[in-house]
């Protein structure tokens, strides 16, 4: 393992340890919920980051994987009485399989850039229409999970249960990102992102690498869907496959810094804080708070093209804290 890999691994472990200790110091349920929702968004952003950030394949339809996970959890519980913890595994596999299917169909025909983005958007819409049509997904009425509080049912009575669950999902996401940053597969994926033709010329199997990335990304995104269903216990086609989820996932990764380990996490916390602050400042004029939120987003994306993590790295260099550009570790 390179010193850089060890350093970033230690950083991840330290971060997770700090986050694990955090609930002991938080007395406010609101702030605990805030952390849960920020971590949940970060997990979606990390899933998008695997394909979009590391692989340069910008998906506008990641909601399809989220929805597959959410519906897998809901259908398996409601229709077949399967324990939600088991559905987590099933959703992971189904999300990955969906990713593999979409990847096989799109990458096989060389779709990339805006074409790939549009096709993923279309796929998400197809899934939304299908979920809206079939009775076994509850059609337009959606599906509701039976209220049965208890850790065995993945319905924690104490918020800390959800906190540690989503923290574990985020931890797994961070480890995947770390692995991509320091593994051969990650190097292939980055090579594909930087120059697909050059990567192919160097012997990288571009199709298989992209297929692997979208499969992994889909599986991770589906896990977020299961978490959502267990926490809020209701899902319908617009909630599961709507553009909102896709935008949320890509936004936190773009704002935080694409292709970095901590980018989605930083982006998720920053956006959650900005949203909270603007709402608190001018909550009585809700349209204004949304406008301010939008304005801040425009400013961030315009002046920090490499995301917040890129901005922080550049600041560190200017202050002489870092000698070279070395990613985000």
């Amino acid at each position: 393992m390179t010193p850089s890999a060890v350093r970033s691994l230690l950083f991840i472990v330290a971060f997770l340890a700090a986050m694990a200790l955090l609930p002991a110091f938080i007395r406010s349920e609101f702030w605990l919920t805030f952390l849960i929702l920020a971590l949940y968004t970060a997990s979606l952003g990390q899933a998008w980051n695997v394909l979009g950030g590391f692989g340069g394949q910008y998906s506008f339809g990641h909601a399809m994987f989220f929805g597959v996970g959410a519906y897998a959890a809901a259908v398996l519980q409601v229709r077949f009485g399967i324990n939600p913890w088991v559905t987590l595994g099933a959703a992971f596999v189904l999300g990955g399989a969906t990713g593999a299917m979409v990847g096989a169909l799109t990458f096989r025909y060389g779709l990339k850039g805006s074409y790939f983005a549009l096709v993923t958007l279309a796929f998400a819409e197809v899934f939304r229409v299908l979920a809206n049509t079939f009775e076994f997904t509850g059609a337009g009425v959606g599906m509701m999970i039976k209220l049965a509080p208890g850790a065995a049912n993945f319905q924690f009575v104490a918020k800390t249960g959800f906190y540690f669950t989503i923290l574990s999902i985020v931890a797994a996401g961070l480890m995947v990102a770390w692995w991509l940053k320091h593994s051969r597969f990650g190097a292939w994926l980055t090579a594909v992102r930087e120059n697909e033709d050059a990567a192919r010329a160097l012997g990288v199997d571009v199709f298989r690498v992209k297929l692997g990335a979208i499969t992994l990304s889909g599986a991770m995104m589906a896990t977020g869907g299961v978490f959502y269903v267990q926490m809020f216990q209701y899902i319908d086609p617009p909630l599961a496959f709507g553009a909102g989820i896709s935008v949320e996932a890509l936004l936190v990764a773009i704002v935080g810094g694409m292709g970095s380990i901590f980018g989605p996490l930083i982006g998720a916390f920053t956006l959650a804080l900005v949203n909270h602050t603007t709402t608190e400042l001018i909550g009585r004029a809700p349209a204004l708070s949304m406008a301010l939120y939008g304005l801040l987003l425009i400013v961030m994306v315009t002046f920090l093209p490499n995301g917040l993590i890129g901005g922080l790295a550049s600041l560190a260099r200017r202050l002489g804290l870092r000698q070279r550009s070395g990613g985000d570790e």
Partner: protein
Amino acid sequence: MKQTRRIFIKHTAAAAGAMGFPLIGGAQPAPIKIGVLHPVTGALAFPGQQCREGTMLAIEEINARGGIKSMGGAKIQPVLGDAQSQPQVGAAEVEKMNEQGVTAIVGAYASAICLAHTQAAAKYNIPCIIDQGVAEQIVQRGLKNVFRFGPGYEKVVRAGINYLHIMNTVAGRPIRSAVLVHEESLFGTGTAQQIARDLPAMGYEVLETIKHANPTRDFNNIALRIKSRNPDVVIPSSYLNEYVLLLKTLKQQGVAPKAIYSIFGGGGSNPKVIKENPGDVDLVLDCNHWYNPKNPKSREVRARAEKKGLFFTHEVLMAYTVTMMLGDALERAKSSRREAVLDALQASTWSDHIMPYGPTKFVNGQNEGAQPLVTQYLKGDVKVVLPNNFAEAEAVFPARKG
């Protein structure tokens, strides 16, 4: 007189005492915090804001009358929350409201948000007064903190079909076939499913059920399909914008069924709609939440809302009424403790309201007496036409010969 230090201190103490006296002698009781949770941004911003306005209208009225008298005139202080049209944000707002010490929460318009926010509130035993969420599951999960004043959608759909059958029978059965048009989410799909199930049992033929997306900006194809099926009645279950657009398109395409009758129609009983589109929606019938027009107080409340520049839609109406019901519960609870308010709501027999419900009676969180009314756009306004004991005008049925 020379201003010595002693005189200055004496005068300052006297002034401070005089200023402080009313605060000590006639101390104002602590305000009662009420969470006002609605989706005021996002896709549901307009109805959400209408709900917020309705709640504020009631809070202003309660406070102007001297607050909660059994608590020494304690004023109600709204704690505003925005669910941003997302269930998870609604649930997070509950956490914030809990920490701000709210006694109860009024909200949250959409069924999906209501499902999430009531569950989050159950953990803290916060009474949740549902203003609009009509999905039956909201009151079927055994949560003891949920109180829905208005009817759920199963009851409204059942009543709506019965009222249609009554009007049709009285008119000599001119209506025999129907086309259902519905939006694709819980509200439209659930309503259309139940109508499609119940209508044939009463001798009507459902020629076709047409689903449309949200938003839909062109109803020409749907209008032409309806034209080709030539139904006697069109039954739309859509949100406001799509509802109005569908009706306008039907008119443009020359589709003139004998009646347009909606159940929970997004624009079927909305003063704004008839004011802005008189020629397009005239004589449309709707079975929905509406006030008792025979209660003189209804007009007073409506006038007060309109004076504030509000359209008196059923969102304003329901949010206003449920907040007044909460005011009554607080008065009887004589305490802002959540348990006391829960008990007061459970025992509520409130009848001083403008809805056609009679005294409240909650069974498993559902007000048993809640019922919808049938309204029709007549003479540029929304008029109640059924049931007869609340009717202010006779229904024009069928609206056209077809």
